[in-house]
């Protein structure tokens, strides 16, 4: 706290002025009841307590309710009338023989009392001199995964019960996986019913080892093991005399001392605006619960999504202005500048930004009887933001019992899977592992308004890394050999239509010069273009073909098919081939497609050609070579060319072609 100011922050911090408490002697409420402790001292100490929320997971048979009953009973949270009602009910409907059935305490609802099972999350409260505790009591049945996930979402710590006579079983693994999925950092493996295994250290050690081996594949940083008997009270509140080999703490002692405050994220300021306070023209406050990080008077902040920056003028609370606020405080801030901010916006430090994205991946738990539907646009509520979301793909489903991943098209009730999501507008998030507040969200069914799924964001994925979603229609296309990238999509991406510019003319007529200059021009303007000419094609693809009329026909047929493939994929082909025969040129046009075929004729005089290629023509004149168009093979002057060019003006000719392509919307398309 800043010493220079007299802005008060007292009352918001715990345990600074409280009386020192001897950790070895936890204060029981009975101390106040019978010991006559001064009530003011008690109240002053009580007001300094902090809060620990924990989850208990285990099956009906693990003795979970008995453990909770014990904790409540031994911390004197049970009143006389509740206890006598309990004794009465135990005899009437209990499942513990003549003993008190503590389970009846925690199984509140009528329906589940009849069935003898817990069917929902129940919250229990008790406190000791050091702490107040909230227990989320959740059932162990597989079909109620959603309840356990619910209980785990607000817990700092999980107690997972194991029956010492059964050891680490499928259910233990399931509970542990869910606890790790929900990001609980502290786990206590409570090995119960030690009385039934003769308080054996060997049994306990084996269970601990089994469990350690299992959790290496999960992300749980802090694990503790406690042997106990809830029924007999061993190591629940008081350390047991029956297990001298165990030197650790009892369950309650452990719960009292475990340090949890550092689990909060105090580094990354995330202030999701919840409510805009405007009581009069002078005051404009932005109320929120600090999700993470510290918000301080004088801090420079950036507003998402607008990106505008300002400074925190004041941190306001009913109890006086504060110098700073931290999670999970609910405060109101005012800014130095007037910026338009509304609910759902987020204040952050400019040098520490969350991800601002529409696409992300998350682990999703499906909570609704109605299964996931990929064609539904769900509501997503994330921090104080509500928008629409599409589920693009289920990457895999995780079997909670075996942790095996399998491919699945959608999730149903109690399924857990990794999914790809796209929201209508960008949301501001961090990975759940790093920030529970900004990494979690719920999905709401747009018709029933039920909370149908809950999610934990895995990490940012930029759009180029996202796997494209494969629909049933896609699969049909693939099966039929149809591409998934349509002509229209290519046209938009390349900004061109796949076409062939076919340049015909005698040897030495300047075809290649025109073709290569055109290719470079198109390329520089951003077109996707390929050039093909006789020598390059004949050097490989058509190596075995000669210049006879029959081979010439095959040569051009192959070139035409190459052009067609290129044009189909949206690419412009610039072709430079003599192609002297009018009927062959017509065949080429038919293969490529008349509409995509654009014929250009280099209308050069024989003198011009001979001057360009004197050796070739000389050889033909001597008869040293045959099949040279214009010499011993006729050249059909094209009647259907788009242009007949003078080869001496090739730079102008290129401009003419570019204009032509633009006019025909071949390139650029738009």
């Amino acid at each position, binding site marked *: 706290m800043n010493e220079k100011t007299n802005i008060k922050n007292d009352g*918001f*911090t*715990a345990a*600074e002025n409280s009386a020192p408490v001897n950790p070895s002697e936890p204060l029981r*409420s009975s101390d*106040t*009841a019978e010991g006559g402790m001064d*009530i003011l001292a*008690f*109240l002053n100490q*009580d*007001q300094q307590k*902090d*809060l620990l929320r924990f989850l208990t997971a285990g099956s009906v048979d693990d003795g979970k309710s008995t453990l909770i009953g014990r904790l409540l009973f031994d911390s004197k949270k049970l*009143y*006389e*009338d509740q206890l006598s009602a309990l004794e009465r009910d135990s005899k009437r409907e209990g499942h513990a023989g003549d003993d008190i059935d503590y389970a009846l305490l925690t199984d509140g*609802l*009528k329906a589940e009392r009849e069935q003898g099972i817990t*069917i*929902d999350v129940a*919250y*229990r*409260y008790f*406190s000791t001199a050091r*702490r*107040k505790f909230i227990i989320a009591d959740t059932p162990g049945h597989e079909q109620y995964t*959603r309840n356990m*996930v*619910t209980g785990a979402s*607000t817990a700092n710590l999980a107690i997972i019960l194991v029956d010492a006579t059964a050891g680490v079983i499928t259910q233990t693994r399931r509970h542990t996986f869910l606890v790790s999925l929900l990001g609980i950092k502290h786990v206590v493996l409570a090995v119960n019913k030690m009385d039934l295994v003769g308080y054996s250290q060997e049994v306990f050690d084996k269970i601990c080892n089994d469990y350690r081996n299992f959790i290496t594949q999960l992300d749980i940083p802090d694990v503790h093991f406690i042997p106990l008997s809830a029924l007999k009270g061993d190591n629940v509140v008081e350390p047991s005399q029956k297990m001298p080999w165990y030197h650790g703490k009892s369950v309650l002692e452990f719960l009292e001392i475990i340090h949890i*405050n550092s689990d909060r994220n105090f580094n990354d300021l995330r202030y999701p605006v*919840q*409510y805009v*306070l*405007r*009581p009069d023209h002078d*005051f404009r*406050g932005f*109320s929120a*619960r600090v999700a993470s990080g*510290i918000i301080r008077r004088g801090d420079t902040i950036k507003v998402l999504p607008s990106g505008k920056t300002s400074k925190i003028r004041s941190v*306001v*609370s*009913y*109890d006086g202005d504060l110098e700073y606020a*931290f*999670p*999970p405080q*609910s405060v109101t801030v005012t800014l130095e500048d007037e910026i338009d901010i509304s609910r759902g916006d987020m204040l952050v430090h400019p040098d520490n930004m969350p991800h601002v994205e529409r696409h992300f991946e998350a682990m999703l738990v499906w*909570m609704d009887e109605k299964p996931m539907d990929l064609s539904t646009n769900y509501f997503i*509520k994330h921090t*104080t933001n509500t928008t629409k979301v599409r589920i693009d793909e289920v990457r895999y489903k995780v079997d909670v019992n075996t942790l095996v991943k399998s491919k699945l098209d959608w999730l149903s009730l109690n399924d857990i899977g990794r999914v790809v999501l796209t929201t209508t507008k960008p949301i501001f998030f961090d990975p759940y592992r790093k920030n529970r507040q900004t990494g*979690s*969200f719920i999905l*709401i069914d747009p018709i029933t*308004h*039920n*909370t149908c799924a*809950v999610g934990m964001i895995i990490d940012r994925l930029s759009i180029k890394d996202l796997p494209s979603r494969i629909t049933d229609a896609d699969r049909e296309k693939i099966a039929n050999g149809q591409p998934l990238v349509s002509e229209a999509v290519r046209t938009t991406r390349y900004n061109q239509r796949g076409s062939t510019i076919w340049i015909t003319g005698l040897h030495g007529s300047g075809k290649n010069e025109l073709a290569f200059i055109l290719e470079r021009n198109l390329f520089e303007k951003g077109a996707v273009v390929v050039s093909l000419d006789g020598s390059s094609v004949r050097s490989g693809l058509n190596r075995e073909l000669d210049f006879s009329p029959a081979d010439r026909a095959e040569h051009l047929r192959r070139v035409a098919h190459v052009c067609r493939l290129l044009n189909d994929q949206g690419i412009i082909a610039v072709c430079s081939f003599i192609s002297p025969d009018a009927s062959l040129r017509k065949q080429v046009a038919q293969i490529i497609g008349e509409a995509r075929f654009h014929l250009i004729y280099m209308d050069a005089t024989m003198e011009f050609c001979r001057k360009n290629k004197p050796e070739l023509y000389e050889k033909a004149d001597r008869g040293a070579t045959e099949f040279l168009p214009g010499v011993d093979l006729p050249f059909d002057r094209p009647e259907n060319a788009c242009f007949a060019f003078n080869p001496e003006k090739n730079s102008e000719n290129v401009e003419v072609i570019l204009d032509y392509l633009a006019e025909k919307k071949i390139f650029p398309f738009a």
Partner: protein
Amino acid sequence: MKAYSLTNLKELEAEAIYIIREVAAEFQNPVMLYSIGKDSSVMVRLAEKAFYPGKVPFPLMHIDSKWKFREMIEFRDNYAREKGWDLIVHYNKEGFEAGIGPFTHGSKVHTDVMKTQALLQGLDKYKFDAAFGGARRDEEKSRAKERIFSFRDRFHQWDPKNQRPELWDIYNAKVHKGESIRVFPLSNWTELDIWQYIRLEKIPIVPLYYAKERPVVNLDGNLILVDDDRMPEEMRQRAEMRKVRFRTLGCYPLTGAVESEADTIEKIVEEMMTITKSERTTRVIDFDQEASMEQKKREGYF
């Protein structure tokens, strides 16, 4: 540097303020139900804190069964005037005119007509889509499973098997027309937390909570205050002066007093720590039938 940690009470306060703001932001027409009791008083203070320095942006509504302690009504009117609250008082007119009351019709009929039905009338009349209640999960077994945002259908009914999952602090506020949400910002508070908070925040409460010599009648083990002459005369004649106080406040014929010397908050807490009975034992209505609170909740009562 000091650790950035909150005490239990400050954490509960921050949570409640967040919940109250969430409702104000997400609903069209919320209301805060004000029962004049200690929990309501805490809840109203939290609402004031939530919107400070502005005013609470929704009205308070008191469902008057017409059988409340007179001191409660007096306290309500003075406090509301002093604070300038927007306070709606609603009662079941037909029930009142038919003379429904616990002495003549029994606690079951009275509670149903003058409390449950009156509440539903009030909610329907003003078309509230969200209603805050001061209930706590530690009060009673069926409440231990209650959501913070508790969905009610068009008939205000609660279905314990069909509640919306509620995770983290992300509350689903989506409702169709006619449906509503009951919101319990004090869900995670215990009775001790409430008293501790009242003490620390110096929140005014109805004097009936403090022990004082009062005329009471012992009815089947419940000490019932003689609050007005609607109590049958043969009962009133058995009245005796005893130093008593009330742990909870409701309709005077249905709320038993406890003998006590606790006339300050500190003494009340001290008494609480030594008391061996839960607070609901002073509520006559809970004993009407097995699982009666769950039944009432299903019918639309809080």
